[in-house]
């Protein structure tokens, strides 16, 4: 019940910050739209690349806008910089809540608000940009989406805990973001990347937070592939839970709460 309260309070906060939320959303539009234009020019007369048509590409990037708004968390700055490095964590440690779940429930309203903007944006853009037919969302796709959200959050939260030991975490967060953009299929659908990158991407967790959720919505994944994706998400989620617990246990011992 108390988590519902926290959720509502942060939703209120998110609404107050709606202009900021709108701007974050506009930011998520720019690169995908540019890439749609890029491919419009690049694909030439044939309009095909490795079995992907121009409209497939359009659909992919437009769905990227929606999924990155809803599924991709950016809690590393809050956890790593504000809470750990700047000492904000002291306020949470004295409360009878799990810090992890508190952060998670604080994050949800912002994802929802971004999601609302994203869906509205998607509807408007699809009236201007031709896309392929999107099949109805199946239970497997829904599970993959939930898995992506959890995995994204866990990954960011776990990496953020490095701030217990390292002062300059900004560089590490930037590196992670760059790697996520490349291996997550943000520049190009993973299947269209050079082969050696595809192999690395499929074993990294990043592909399961963006590329696979999108292609699942597009209906490009067979049932076997969807099951495999869910298994991989599960494995990565378990790995990150373990990592988080270990880092939290040792990190808290090191935490000194300076600055508060």
């Amino acid at each position, binding site marked *: 019940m108390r988590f519902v309260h926290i959720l509502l309070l942060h939703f209120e906060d998110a609404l107050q910050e709606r202009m900021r939320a709108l701007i974050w959303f506009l930011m998520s539009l720019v690169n995908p739209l540019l890439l749609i*234009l*890029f491919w419009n020019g690049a694909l030439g007369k044939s309009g095909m690349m490795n079995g992907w048509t121009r409209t497939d590409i359009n659909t992919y990037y437009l769905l990227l806008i929606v999924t990155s708004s809803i599924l991709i968390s950016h809690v590393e700055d809050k956890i790593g910089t504000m809470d750990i490095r700047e000492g904000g964590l002291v306020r949470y440690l004295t409360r009878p809540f799990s810090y992890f779940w508190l952060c998670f429930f604080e994050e949800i309203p912002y994802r929802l608000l971004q999601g609302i903007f994203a869906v509205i944006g998607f509807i408007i853009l699809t009236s201007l940009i031709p896309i392929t037919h999107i099949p109805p969302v199946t239970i497997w796709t829904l599970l993959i989406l939930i898995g992506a959200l959890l995995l994204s959050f866990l990954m960011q939260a776990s990496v953020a805990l490095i701030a217990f030991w390292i002062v300059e975490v900004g560089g590490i967060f930037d590196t992670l973001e760059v790697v996520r*953009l490349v291996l997550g299929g943000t520049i190009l659908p993973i299947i269209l990347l050079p082969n050696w990158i595809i192999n690395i991407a499929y074993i990294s967790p990043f592909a399961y937070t963006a590329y696979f959720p999108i292609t699942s919505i597009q209906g490009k994944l067979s049932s076997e592939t969807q099951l495999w994706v869910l298994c991989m998400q599960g494995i990565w989620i378990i790995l990150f839970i373990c990592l988080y617990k270990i880092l939290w246990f040792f990190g808290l011992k090191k935490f000194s709460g300076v600055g508060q």
Partner: protein
Amino acid sequence: MKRYLRIYKLLLSINLSDLMAYRAGFFGSFFGTTIWGVFHFISIFILTSRVNSVYGWSRSELFILTATFSIMWGTFRMIFIKNFSQFSHTILQGKLDGLLLKPLDSQFLMSVLKVNYVDVGRIVMGSVFMIYVIHTYHITITLWSIMLFSFLIIFSMFSAYALWFSVSTIIIWFPRLSNLIELLYTFAGILRYPSDLMGGFGEFTVFFLAPILFILTTPVKTLIGRMSIPDIAWLIIFSLLFLLFSRLFWKHALKSYTSVSS
């Protein structure tokens, strides 16, 4: 003018001292900015790995555009980025008061007080990549094209500055919208692509976004021997007008400045 140059020289030296005083921050920031610089090169490699030309631009020409972006963007970031990032903070924390009370132009102080030396990395990366591409792809560059390119890049910088400063000025009315400037950084990504891209979206978009796109495409076109006099004229006129606008807008905004409470 002399006075401002003297003060800027002093600011460069103070910022360098400041950098030396806090070395830990330097390495982290240097690494971060370099990674993003590398990302732009990786992006263009990946995007052009399966196609040879985009809107009439060859792979090597797109590389030159990316390298130019790295140099210009690195220079822009070095001179301005810390100041723009702090714009919202400066206003919200009342530090703008301190700047407004100095007998020095407030736009100058808001724009150049801090120098971000870590972005030298991007300038170096871009220059090295540029030389590599020119050499590897045997691109013909004349002295005249280099001079014209260098001259036009200054106007590119004026345009980018005017855009950033004008948008940042909006923060005087909405101090909480610090991510407005973040939005601009995302828009900066547009500069990496040729302006011809916009043709794909129709005239409306071209009209709206063309000024931004011409910022870099025009100087690069002069470098690779595809000079266009109308584009050059457009860049120069636009950048000067936009610069003037940013100044007038700032002066107008200061009238609405309410200052934070004590």
